[in-house]
């Protein structure tokens, strides 16, 4: 295959997978122009990370739920509940910051056990179980907080979502540590891409041309390095970005390289075939919801840290942002299809949309309308592509 036809394929044959990346670039370019470059300014990039990290964390769990053919409507309420538990422990009883965070994750996991039990072992559709959970966990949040907001958190706790690692390796007008992380990230990405490619070549599989491989990796490297540079000359490495980065890598590996990940796709792709292949469907579904609960706990801790307190109404509509991120990122509404990377880019599309419109001073009502339309168009585009692929074969 030549580089030219490969480039053409990105916009034609492979549009279904590459579409989200193209759309993301277009949206970024659009808002950069409309905000006179403000969108990509170092300060604003850092802000986007701080402001939307919890949606991305939720999307990591949600993509697994959706690939397995379920949905989870309760994560918004769960963010509130876990944040509230953490706040009560840390602010009211004076427990150390890490106890609050561990408690948030533990409560999230426990709620996941509850929902997973009903979905996996009783066989109630996840839509119903998590709709009930949405009400249940919201109610519990009110109970835990006695209907009043709690704040403020001690300084260490606030660092989770608002802190930076700056000057660890010295600053020279830029933060050396941040730049180093960026370099490590690029090296890791290129190495993993290269080893996959080498494996395929070794066993006689077709791979993209070397030119395309280099072009793709060079482009990713430039974008990543540029991004980290911008952050390095701003306020340094946000702690929440480290958390997010570790989670994204972990979940990418979990979904693509492990038996558990394979089983999720098998269940979503063809439930009957998965059962007849010896997949323990109940157990896998159970753990998918426990995992979702845990991640909601992480998001709850991050969000409470960022808002420096716990409010009874926190996390409202977060579930919809997370679900939208997955579908915009190419997940199939019927299960079996979807990637962690897609969900993250989908989440970033939502983040850039919101942030860009905020910078332009667009009102909240118009923001909702635009986000709603984008979600609808993204899924319509996906269905159109599926149908086109169906006709071609």
């Amino acid at each position, binding site marked *: 295959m030549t580089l030219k036809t490969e480039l053409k394929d990105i916009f034609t044959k492979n549009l279904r997978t590459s579409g989200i990346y193209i759309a993301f670039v277009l949206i970024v370019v659009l808002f950069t122009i409309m905000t006179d470059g403000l969108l990509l300014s170092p300060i604003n990039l850092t802000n986007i990370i701080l402001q939307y990290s919890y949606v991305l964390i939720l999307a990591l769990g949600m993509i697994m739920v959706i690939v397995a053919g379920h949905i989870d409507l309760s994560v918004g309420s769960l963010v509130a509940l876990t944040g509230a538990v953490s706040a009560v422990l840390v602010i009211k009883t004076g427990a150390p910051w890490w106890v609050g965070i561990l408690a948030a994750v533990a409560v999230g996991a426990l709620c996941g056990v509850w929902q997973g039990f009903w979905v996996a072992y009783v066989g109630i559709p996840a839509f119903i179980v998590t709709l009930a959970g949405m009400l249940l966990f919201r109610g519990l949040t009110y109970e835990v907080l006695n209907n009043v907001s709690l704040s403020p958190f001690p300084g260490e706790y606030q660092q989770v979502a608002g802190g930076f690692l700056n000057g660890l390796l010295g600053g020279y007008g830029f933060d050396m540590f941040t730049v180093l992380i960026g370099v490590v990230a690029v090296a890791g990405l290129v190495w993993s891409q290269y080893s996959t490619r080498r*494996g395929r070549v070794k066993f006689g599989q077709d791979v993209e041309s070397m030119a395309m491989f280099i072009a793709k990796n060079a482009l990713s490297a430039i974008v990543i390095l540029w991004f980290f540079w911008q952050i390095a000359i701003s306020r340094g490495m946000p702690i929440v970005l480290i958390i997010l980065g570790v989670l994204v890598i972990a979940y990418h590996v979990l979904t693509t390289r492990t038996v558990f990940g394979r089983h999720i796709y098998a269940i979503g792709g063809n439930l009957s*075939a998965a059962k007849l*292949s010896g997949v*323990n469907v109940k157990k896998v579904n159970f753990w998918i919801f426990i995992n979702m609960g845990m991640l909601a706990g992480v998001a709850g801790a991050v969000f409470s840290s960022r808002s420096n307190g716990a409010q009874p109404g926190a996390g409202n509509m977060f579930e919809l942002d997370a679900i939208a991120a997955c579908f915009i990122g190419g997940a199939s509404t019927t299960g079996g299809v979807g990637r962690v990377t897609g969900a993250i880019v989908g989440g970033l599309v939502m983040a850039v949309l919101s942030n860009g419109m905020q910078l332009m001073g667009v009102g909240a009502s118009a923001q909702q309308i635009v986000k709603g339309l984008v979600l609808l168009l993204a899924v319509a585009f996906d269905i159109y592509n599926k149908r086109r692929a169906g006709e071609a074969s």
Partner: protein
Amino acid sequence: MDSTILQMQDITKTFPGVKALDGVNLSVRQGEIHAICGENGAGKSTLMKVLSGVYPHGSYDGKILFNGQELKASSIKDSEAKGIVIIHQELALVPYLSVAENLFLGNETKRRGLIDWQEANQRAAKLLARVGLAESPVTPVGQLGVGKQQLVEIAKALNKDVKLLILDEPTAALNDDDSEHLLNLLRELREQGITCIIISHKLGEIEDIANNTTIIRDGQTVESLDMADPGSTQNRIIQGMVGRSLSARYPDREPNIGQVVFEVRDWSVHHPTQHERVVVNKASLDVRAGEIVGIAGLMGAGRTELAMSIFGHSYGRGISGTVLMDGRPVDTSTVGKAIKAGIAYVSEDRKKFGLNLLEDIRVNTTAAGLGKISSRGFVNGNKEIQIAEHYRKSMRIKAPSVLAKTGNLSGGNQQKVVLGKWLHTAPELLILDEPTRGIDVGAKYEIYTIINELAASGKAVLVISSELPELLGICDRIYTLAYGRMTGQLPKSEATQERLMELMTIEKENVR
């Protein structure tokens, strides 16, 4: 009595790649019961779908004359308006609606746009009396047994002023009493001048009730028998159904048969929802290493149910019996345990039960044996590609690479992927359920070759098939299954289609 009500002339119906009907002729006289016989897939149901307008006029070639006029039905509604009503094997009743609601569904008695329930229930009661069903019209249909539901279907047909009633395997799911009642009802309807076409595998029943029998084989009419003729016996019908010669459609093979590898003793299975119904009744069988053993049985005999219940209790409930591998009893109560015990099951429906069509060959090949290529939960990607590539080559799967989506492959190649998937689990016994269904002739030969290679490598192979020639062509020994019971076994040397068909249609308890 002698006038012809229905004449189907030269009916030809083609599906992409398959000629389902090839110049079929059928002539039915006014007021008779006319039976249609044929093997599974002979084209009986297709013919009835043409007649009832499921396949609209224009989608087939040939001419249908009904009451002397050409029938050009473009939908079921059209043919029903003419008085032709078909009752399918799968009953089309809404279980949560009442008997009366079901009877008048789509045909409601309305007064000023509203349904007049009083009148509807009265009319329903009259219809129920006609079919001899003593139930209240307000009873939900779901509370009735299958036999009574069948009567509701017939009452529904009577309401539509039926002239020609078509029944597809009406007694397949009924017990003896219900069957008897149904057949009596058909006789009564015949007295009233209603013509009836009945498709059935139960030859005894046909001998009992039919005036004429038309036999269809491979999409063609073989002959029509007048059942009043003393020569029209069950054997005569069987001969007509199977009478084709075996050609060299099967690769040669020298069997090398060893010890008994797999044995099932007294295996019984109950229906998953109708708990009192026994689907498999004390079945026993064994397969030796290197041996290919067939299971023959008509639709509904319990072949797939037997296989799936053995494989991880994937069908039915109230399962009892023993499975032995190499003489030792093994637990097969979950699919995981069955795989560990060395059993593999290739389903008859590869799209529904065999493959994840969204994924590529690689992922599908390793789906049932991920444990073999992973350590501490991590899949070894290189090893996986190596294994998928190995099966792609050895199975001669036609695909550009193992990263090709299985949804884009042809039926034969999909089947090879499923076979590769199960070989990867390194089973001792492979159960192949309809291994060549929906596959073209050339690919069939390749699948047979693979099956032979498996047996040659010492695996025990159990093949379930509706096609008797296929079983005769590849098996060393054939069991017959009828109504959930094992009714016999024949070594290759003694097996003929006629003898198998005889064993497959044994109805009562006169088992060997």
